[in-house]
């Protein structure tokens, strides 16, 4: 009962937050509200009993991407152009069509917790039964991530690492190169 109330309130907050972000024009405020938004999403994940996803969402969404957005704003000044009034019909139509397609796609998904769903009948059984013996990792999710899907995780880590290096190269403030007037004068 109380779980349902918490669910509904969190989802309500999400909707309110999304509309507030849409209407907001101050970029720094938008960045802060995005942080709040992903904190809420992480809360929803927690309530949905997915602590690992909630961990990731909280670390990446609330922590790193908020800080990155703020750092970008601090590096670029938060000036913004006032957009023209009126509705951009084309993007609106594309968004509504994509959303309708996604909602249509939900119909084919199995119900939450359905024991006959494909993800419970195919490989999960093997992971649960012999995962610990094969990998020696006590946590099943960690075993799947680090051992069974090791190459995938390695690729993800490579991508994230490369992106981090790129962002650091872009954002780190370098000293301006000094003009060597004396040397030119000497020559």
């Amino acid at each position: 009962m109380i779980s349902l109330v918490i669910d509904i309130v969190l989802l309500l907050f999400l909707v309110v937050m999304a509309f507030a972000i849409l209407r907001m024009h101050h970029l720094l405020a938008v960045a802060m509200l995005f942080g709040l938004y992903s904190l809420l999403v992480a809360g929803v994940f927690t309530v949905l009993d997915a602590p690992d996803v909630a961990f990731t969402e909280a670390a990446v969404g609330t922590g790193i991407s908020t800080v990155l957005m703020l750092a970008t704003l601090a590096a670029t000044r938060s000036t913004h152009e006032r957009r023209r009034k009126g509705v951009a019909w084309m993007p609106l139509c594309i968004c509504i069509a994509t959303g309708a397609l996604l909602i249509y796609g939900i119909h084919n998904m199995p119900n939450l917790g359905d024991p006959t769903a494909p993800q419970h009948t195919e490989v999960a059984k093997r992971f649960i039964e012999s995962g610990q013996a094969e990998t020696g990792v006590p946590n099943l999710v960690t075993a799947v991530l680090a051992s069974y899907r090791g190459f995938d995780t390695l690729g993800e880590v490579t991508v994230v690492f490369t992106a981090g290096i790129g962002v650091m190269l872009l954002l780190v403030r370098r000293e301006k190169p000094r003009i060597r007037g004396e040397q030119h004068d000497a020559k």
Partner: protein
Amino acid sequence: MITLFSAGAIAVMVTMALAVARAIAGPTIFDRILAVNMFGTKAVLLIALFAFISGRMDVLDIALLYSLLNFVGVIAALRLVQRGKGFADEHEDRA
């Protein structure tokens, strides 16, 4: 006991709603930062209460992580506001 935790959760959610209102309406950037910080704290409390309501104690770890992230995020935001000139005095002109 569950009733007590539930009442606490509802009270925390009311406080969260107030913080959201301040984050959306807040005229200056410091109002928003403070509201986001308070919202994060209340989220930690709500998750802890939820852990006791549902009996899943591993959720408490997530609450710990949230409080860490909240702290780091607010410190980072304040430092960047200090560094980026023009953030602080810029009042939002709402349409």
